[in-house]
């Protein structure tokens, strides 16, 4: 596997984790209301 592919895949994985966490917080906040 090329260097660029591994680096890109790592960035995609990390950013996906951060987005998933932010989305989880957002959904829980919407369900809570207030």
């Amino acid at each position, binding site marked *: 596997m090329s*260097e*660029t592919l*591994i*680096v890109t895949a*790592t*960035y995609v*994985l*990390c*950013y996906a*984790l*951060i*987005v998933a*966490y*932010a989305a989880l*917080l*957002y959904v*829980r*906040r*919407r369900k*809570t*209301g*207030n």
Partner: protein
Amino acid sequence: MSRVRASLALAAAALGVGLWFALSAPPDVLQGAYSRLLYIHASTLWLAFLAFGVTCFASIAWLIRKRPRWDRLASASVEIGVLFTAIGLVVGMIWGKAVWGIAWDWMDPRLATTAVMFFVYLGYLALRAATDDPVARARRSAILGAIAVVQVPLVYFSVNLFRTLHQTQSIRPDGPTMPDEMVTALLVNVAVFTILYVALLWVRVDLARAEGTKSGVGLVAGEAVKPPRINEVKDV
């Protein structure tokens, strides 16, 4: 909710800027494109140090003032810190496998102390989940949050105190060991991840406050009881 959306949108925009700087930075002569992993690895672990420092401050504030908001701030900061320590460790392992030839070495003090720090703060979250009483939960986690921060300087200076596989700091008091373009990309990403941390922390604390208000959990005993005001009492 609009402020939550605005915080998350700001964080997403900041991440885009950081990604552009990271991918447009020049590759290292020896490591090639792998050197670009530095911008996410160092930034996420910097953010974890900041998060655990904030937890220590909020934990001490709770022990002194006993206000639920300090407990919410401390626990929210740990949650984000643990997430970013995990990301930093995974990126470091991928980078280590590519550059050192091995993903992990328990004999390396930087790697071992970072792993211990990760598990201690994971234990903090487990301790909170295992304690039902809100005041006991806040007290126990505040004591742990105030003490566990000693690991942060230990992790940071482990590369200076011991001879390790892990390199020493790239930005030092006597000047950086990298070209200016790489230093700029690193500092921009550190700033971006700090903005991301503040945005996520704000949303997480707001969520904890909303959930606590809804269920009554997280309030100090008696705090939810509001005495009637004289103008609300009629026909007595």
